[in-house]
């Protein structure tokens, strides 16, 4: 008893996860702790239901969309690397990230990838564009039954028109990025894990 070594060894493939996500060892240990706490039946992976049990997430108007973002490609389970991969989008941008070797793939928490995460919350069918219909759907999620269909359609139309540059009636990722170029994305989409 007592000869349990440091916790990072309990996490499988911890080094490759660290390289991919940029999280520190300590952060990964905390996130692994949290992953195990959410995994109620000790299955080793999380299902949609495990995430739906989180009260504060269930009352979030975009809760279901956020849960979906953990299960890409129709999968029903998310393991720890998948869990951390999504969370990595919200890692604060640090100095060491900005002077990256151009040959390496872009870090998950780059401005572009953060914007892409937000874009995917809108773009359900993953066709690379936010159609007016998809815009309406997200709006409806955020307002519930409080706003009439007509008002919502006005808002959706206006938003698509403002962002749409090539006039195809939908917002592509480029147009999305352009319309938000003044926004401090790095700060708004960052969650800092305390040491």
């Amino acid at each position, binding site marked *: 008893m007592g000869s349990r070594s440091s916790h990072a060894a309990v996490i499988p493939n911890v080094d490759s996860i660290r390289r991919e996500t940029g999280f520190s060892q300590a952060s990964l240990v905390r996130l692994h702790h949290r992953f195990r706490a959410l995994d109620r039946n000790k299955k080793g992976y999380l299902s949609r239901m495990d995430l*739906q049990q989180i009260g504060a997430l269930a009352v979030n108007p975009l809760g279901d969309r956020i849960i979906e973002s953990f299960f890409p490609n129709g999968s029903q389970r998310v393991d720890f690397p998948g869990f951390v991969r999504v969370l990595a989008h919200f890692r604060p941008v640090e100095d060491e990230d900005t002077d990256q070797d151009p040959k390496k793939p872009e870090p998950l928490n780059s401005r572009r990838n953060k914007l892409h995460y937000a874009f995917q919350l809108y773009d359900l069918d993953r066709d690379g564009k936010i159609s007016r219909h998809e815009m309406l759907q997200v709006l409806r999620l955020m307002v519930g039954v409080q706003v009439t269909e007509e008002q919502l359609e006005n808002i959706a139309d206006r938003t698509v028109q403002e962002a749409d540059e090539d006039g195809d009636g939908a917002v592509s990722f480029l147009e*999305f990025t352009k319309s938000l170029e003044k926004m401090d994305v790095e700060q708004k989409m960052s969650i800092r894990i305390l040491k």
Partner: protein
Amino acid sequence: MEGAELAGKILSTWLTLVLGFILLPSVFGVSLGISEIYMKILVKTLEWATIRIEKGAPKESTLKNSASVGIIQRDESPMEKGLSGLRGRDFELSDVFYFSKKGLEAIVEDEVTQRFSSEELVSWNLLTRTNVNFHYISLRLTMVWVLGVIVRYCVLLPLRVTLAFIGISLLVIGTTLVGQLPDSSLKNWLSELVHLTCCRICVRALSGTIHYHNKQYRPQKGGICVANHTSPIDVLILTTDGCYAMVGQVHGGLMGIIQRAMVKACPHVWFERSEMKDRHLVTKRLKEHIADKKKLPILIFPEGTCINNTSVMMFKKGSFEIGGTIHPVAIKYNPQFGDAFWNSSKYNMVSYLLRMMTSWAIVCDVWYMPPMTREEGEDAVQFANRVKSAIAIQGGLTELPWDGGLKRAKVKDTFKEEQQKNYSKMIVGNGSLN
């Protein structure tokens, strides 16, 4: 058959010792001081262990107690500020940022989920089950741990199981016997005696050390006693110091036998499962019970489920609609000696009891509080919250507005609607739209 004779002799000596040192004093409510000596030794050992761990542990690798300190930096500003106060109040593509950030913050850390698992300790208490964050320190510490295992499993466990067995059997037999008597003050006195004795025996079966504070506020007849809920042992702890009428569902098996026996000696309020759904019936029966001033105070746990003793969750308003005087009681366990929280999704009753009996001890504080009644113009929910705050403050627990039912069920949609309402007000404004 020398082996059998020897075994018989050992058993009888053992039983006589148990009888003399534990059972008889329980009847008279007297303590021989054995538990106090045990506790002193235990405290010294744990202090020594803590010092060794602190000396041995390198500063970086120990994980701080994350239950009280958040692990992420929170921005608790309200929705309006979070959605960027600079621009006008219209919908923007970036509004999703706020909600997605809040959502992911909840995934990384939320106030509620952590309450349904045992509290993390700041320093190890030499039990295997709490050794989540601690590393190997030294040979001596390991030796002490091994000694601890032997003591707990080979010495304490058989003793405790014996006591528990005797305690429960005495309870069933005693209450059945007393139940045969006609109603009289003698019956009540005897029933109290039986209840108290058996509860004391059961508490010793867990090596329980309980400190009662403010005994002058002990719940009176015709009142309702309300407490925070951590485990089924709460009932045992409270009934050791006074008799209560219990409220609950009729169970099968061992619990059912105990329930049926107890109700013969003094009136408890047991409901069939189907009756529990009918709230009016429940309220009616409880009202009738407290109207009779000769009946014992009712014991209710308004949270409805076991919480891990770091916080108090929403009190269900049903208990506060009955009327009558509410006597709040705060119960706080000391996790250093043994974790009393019953995680019913992880452990069933039997494994839970075994865990209890192989801990060092159950140490807790019970604070009786001055009685409270519903004030003019206060509805049941506000009253419930008032009582909840009082209990949380007294016990040093955090207060949470969430429903303990979140342990099993999803949260109600009404909470989501509130967020949606707030957001809608912002983008639609007062009817004017861009």
